[in-house]
């Protein structure tokens, strides 16, 4: 089971497996009412407030806000960095998951624990951690403060576990006999990987990648220290939103926030589609 918030993965098959879920009883209705009220106060209303503030000055106001030069460069950089980080994670994360599942070596359990550190480590501490090593007084003489590479590094740090943890269980469950059959039929290692393993893990890789993309897109704490917040260069969207809300420009803040929200929704929907397809196939 992964540390990542699992997005409704098992839900589609639930009805088939258990009894038919019941109609709501009185007590359950009350519970549901309270739950939905809590959700509304906590999630729906605040999100509605963001979207409505974003369009407070009409569509034109929204458009002006997100096409502001500073906003645009922050969005472009954030999306670009998130895509790059996601691509790296898809490859390296799958590789690490493979090693963790199929390889045996001393210290593997330590490695397992180390991989989870970015999940549990507060982001501001992650930022401090990275700047200690890759800042101006770091031991390697590499100063990544104020560079795009520094931001990408911070994002790689915080998103490391996503793909690993989503691919791992799939590899554990994967049927080794198919691979062995392929090998015994003379398939090379690469062919076996491409034809047998890759199709099996692809949905999991996509899920992990989507989560890591969403996380990278919204990341703030680990990035601010190392980015030096250079406008047009290393400023990320979250940082821009914060500055706008502190400069009493709620529309500008809300407009960019709405854009990020929309992307998060798209990512979640994509995840859902992938998972439903997998569930149907499985």
């Amino acid at each position, binding site marked *: 089971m992964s540390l990542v918030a699992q997005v409704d993965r098992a839900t589609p098959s639930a009805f088939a497996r258990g009894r038919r879920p019941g109609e709501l009883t009185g007590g359950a209705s009350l519970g549901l009412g309270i739950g939905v009220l809590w959700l509304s106060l906590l999630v729906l209303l605040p999100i509605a407030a963001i979207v409505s503030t974003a369009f407070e000055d009409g569509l034109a106001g929204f458009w002006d806000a997100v096409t502001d030069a500073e906003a645009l460069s922050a969005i472009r950089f954030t999306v670009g960095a998130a895509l790059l980080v996601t691509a790296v994670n898809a490859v390296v994360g799958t590789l690490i998951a493979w090693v963790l599942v199929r390889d045996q070596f001393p210290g593997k359990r330590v490695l397992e624990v180390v991989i989870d550190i970015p999940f549990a480590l507060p982001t501001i501490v992650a930022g401090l951690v990275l700047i200690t090593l890759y800042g101006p007084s770091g031991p390697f003489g590499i100063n990544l*403060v*104020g560079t795009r590479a520094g931001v990408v590094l911070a994002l790689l740090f915080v998103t490391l576990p996503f793909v690993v943890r989503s691919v791992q269980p799939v590899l554990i469950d994967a049927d080794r006999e198919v691979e062995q059959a392929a090998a015994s039929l003379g398939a090379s290692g690469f062919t076996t990987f491409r034809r047998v393993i890759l199709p099996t893990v692809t949905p999991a890789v996509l899920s992990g990648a989507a989560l890591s993309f969403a996380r990278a897109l919204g990341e703030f704490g680990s990035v601010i220290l190392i980015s030096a917040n250079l406008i047009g260069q290393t400023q990320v969207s979250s940082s821009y939103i914060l500055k706008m809300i502190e400069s009493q420009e709620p529309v500008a803040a809300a407009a960019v926030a709405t854009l990020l929200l929309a992307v998060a929704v798209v990512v979640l929907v994509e995840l859902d589609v992938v998972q439903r397809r997998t569930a149907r196939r499985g």
Partner: protein
Amino acid sequence: MKSTLSGPRARTSSRLAAVLVAASLLAVAGCGSSDDTDTQAGATGGAAGGETSIDLVGFAVIQAAYDDLAQEFAATDAGKGVTVKGSFGASGAQSRAVIAGQDADLVALSLTPDVDNIAKEGLIDEAWSSGEDKGIVSDSVVVLAVRKGNPKGIHGWADIVKPGIGIVTADPGTSGAAKWNLLGAYSQALGENDDTAAAEAYLQQFIGNVVSWNDSGRTATDAFVKGTGDVLISYENEAIAARAAGIELDYVVPDTTFLIENPAAVTTTAPQAAKDFLAFIQSDEGQQVLTAHGFRSVSGLAPAQGVEGANDPANPFPDVDIITVEDLGGWSTVNDELFDKENGLVTKLRG
């Protein structure tokens, strides 16, 4: 699961219980102790003759100086048993936080309009700046901080707009320091003939050379210290404080520069202790604490001792030509012409 043996089951259940209990204990202990702080404060206060705490909302770079001020104040009769709880950040952001409801007894911000905005909401007496000092508690000037040894040969305003020089400053959207910096850059270029075209052209070059706009004066210092840019435009006291803290940089006080005036005011709900603290800050004793941290005193008081971190600790505040916000027509004019979010010159030049 159905056929769990009693042994492991008991063990696992108790372990689960332990985790849950630990979590809830943490919550309960936390709630309990938050009440404790109040009672504790009350208890120790009783011994010291009425413990009061002052909520200070200050701008980014004053923490060290105000920690000292609070300590010295606590040693006076009026300050006995008074603790100061501070929050520090970009002046404009802090001002808006107070308006938005952050608790404040004393605000100490970078510039007068940031306090005025709070007063407009009725949270500070409108007459806060009517006194002799106009509510100003500390002065400073705009300086140019450079890398140790001044490798780029920066000696004045003209040198920082040369091609290839990277300027680090705070952002006027949130920060007071930024407005002072931009005022410094603009006003010195006006020259004797009040040449607004020349000043505008200079500001254009200046803004073109900025590589890093930061949330606050302090984050600008941090960005510069971490290796961004070639010159940091900042408060004289910030450059002095950075050097006193062991950070390697030099600073240049330009021949013509801008007078920075930092106001402070108590809110309408402030306890007497906050008013006393403000009076202490304005007293010669308080002003000396500030000069020791590199601020210039409002009354022109010479520092009682050498100022650590200054270029010349014995003569820390060199006499230079100084332009004030009054010279430019006061804050309302300056805010309209330079910093207006629609038509201000800075807004336009930043495009």
